[in-house]
């Protein structure tokens, strides 16, 4: 700090001043830069990179979750066990199945609603409130309410099926009913987030484009199809990847509403890791499962980035 030139000659040109500063400053700037970012770097290394490294190490040992210490080195045998375990693959499939069911719904429905909402001049705050409010509610409160609404006989949703002459499935007792219950809950809970992302992107589109289209005689449906949707492609891609990752990480709803049941038929990977690590205390094995799952998630986001970058570079080339 002391090396700063305090003699600011008013006659000196701006260019020479900056040149002098940048030539002299680095020593001070170097120290200040590291000092100011050190809290972040320390916490980042300890608590973001740290757990990943701990996971890699533990997955090579037969560590138990009950006793401290690493246990014995077992090499890759935990990985061999995980990859040949049918329960692990079943739970992987449940997470993927949940993703396959929720991603299309949560990418397309909010898009449709956001497009329709953008056409209206009044009451937009009301839609935003109604659709986004669930997003700030804790998962367990959502599950309390939905568990009540899914109750046989007394539940509101169970009864609503009757109003349309349908018989409600056993929401918490059968596998298909359970998936329906969890997907509907998730749709209600997280719809607003994607809705907001789309709404913000739609507001960026210039009104003049629509005007021109209207003058050319394009109806509302044509305008949506040939203007709004194509211009929203980047946002759709973003919403898609965020939704994909969020759905693959599903845990709260399934754990709280169904405990992975009935009979483990909906148990997602995170709950499988939780069960093996904290109920069977097989820390090393559960860490190996964690690392496999972790790699899958990183591969998904890396793959998306690569595809996006390639697509972005094509028009330029």
């Amino acid at each position: 700090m002391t090396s700063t030139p305090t003699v600011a000659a008013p006659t000196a040109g701006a260019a020479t001043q900056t040149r002098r500063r940048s030539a002299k400053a680095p020593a001070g700037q170097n120290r200040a830069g590291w000092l100011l970012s050190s809290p972040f770097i320390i916490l980042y290394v300890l608590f973001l990179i740290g757990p990943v490294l701990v996971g890699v190490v533990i997955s090579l040992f037969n560590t138990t979750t009950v006793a401290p210490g690493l246990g014995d080195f077992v090499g890759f045998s935990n990985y061999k066990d995980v990859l040949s375990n049918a329960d692990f693959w079943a739970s992987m499939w449940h997470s993927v199945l949940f993703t396959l069911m929720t991603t299309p719904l949560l990418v397309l429905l909010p898009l449709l609603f956001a497009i329709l909402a953008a056409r209206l001049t009044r009451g937009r705050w009301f839609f935003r409130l109604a659709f986004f409010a669930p997003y700030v509610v804790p998962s367990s409160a959502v599950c309390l309410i939905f568990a009540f609404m899914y109750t046989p006989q007394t539940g509101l949703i169970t009864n609503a099926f009757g109003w349309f002459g349908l018989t409600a499935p056993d929401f918490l007792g059968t596998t298909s009913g359970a998936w329906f219950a969890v997907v509907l809950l998730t749709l209600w809970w997280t719809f607003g987030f994607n809705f907001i992302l789309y709404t913000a992107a739609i507001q960026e589109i210039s009104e003049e484009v629509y005007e021109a289209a209207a003058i050319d005689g394009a109806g509302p449906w044509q305008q949506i199809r040939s203007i709004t949707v194509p211009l929203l492609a980047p946002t759709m891609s973003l919403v898609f990847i965020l939704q994909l990752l969020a759905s693959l990480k599903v845990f709260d709803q399934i754990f709280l509403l169904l405990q992975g049941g009935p009979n483990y038929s909906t148990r997602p990977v995170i709950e499988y890791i939780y069960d093996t690590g904290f109920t069977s205390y097989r820390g090393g094995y559960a860490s190996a499962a964690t690392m496999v799952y972790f790699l899958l998630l990183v591969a998904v986001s890396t793959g998306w980035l690569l595809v996006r970058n390639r697509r972005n570079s094509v028009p330029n080339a």
Partner: protein
Amino acid sequence: MPATAAATDAPSTTSPSGRGRRRSEDRSDAGTKAFNRLAATCLTLFALIWLVPFVWALITSLRPNNEITSHPTRPWSNNWNLDAYSSTWTTNPIGWWYVNSFIISTLSVLFTVVVCSMAGFALVHLKWRGKYVILGLILGGLMLPMEAIVLPQFMQFRALGLLGTYWALILPVVAAPVAVFVFHAFMRGIPDALIEAARLDGASWFRIYYQVCLPLCRPAISAVAILTFISTWNQFLWPLLVLTQTKSQTIPVGLGSLIGGSAIQYAETMASAVLGILPLLAVFLLLQRQIVQGVANTGIK
């Protein structure tokens, strides 16, 4: 609320393009009008459906249990009362859960804003060796799915002896790559000339960060603060693993333990759900515009 209303009105009254839109709508055929009316009806219908779970939880929490079982779908009551609230408040340490959630979220927000804004400032306005390595590291950090890695994290915190403490919940949240990027983007908008001038006046780099840049970053601060608050408040799996004693739990974990409990105490269960919803819903209603803008600008999840 008035602010949001003004924001939605603004394009149609002030901007020339908005006026053009209105003109073209007048000229447009009946088909467009019918389409818009249909859109409005559909949306309103769905928005009302979206509010049903909230309203239903509230109604149920105010009805006596025997009435709920005998007339499950009746939306009114002959005997509205708050008994369920006092009953659930005394049987569960909800007051403690509020206190824990509040302390953890507030401290997380405080540390996140300070730590990440300092890093953002250093990355934009200072030249230092290793800066681009750190920037790349943070970019990579955006892709780390931390929710997936709770088990090794648990082992790490046990080894550190931090299980059962507030720190176990605060420390992993603070170094948030997204928050650094929000500050990074905002700090880039601050002109170099301003910092040069402060430098020539003899201000230290910390003072420039604290007295020049931070006050200009207020929108970034509020976005990071609000979204950090919401996400830490709503965390479920990590506090479930780390905070094992009933009194030390947070609102989401505490409420989670009530699911599947006493099946006949519908009113009490819904009362506790309403109590769990209330704080964040209040925050959302107060800061609706900032929250929505924050989400739209950063895409934090």
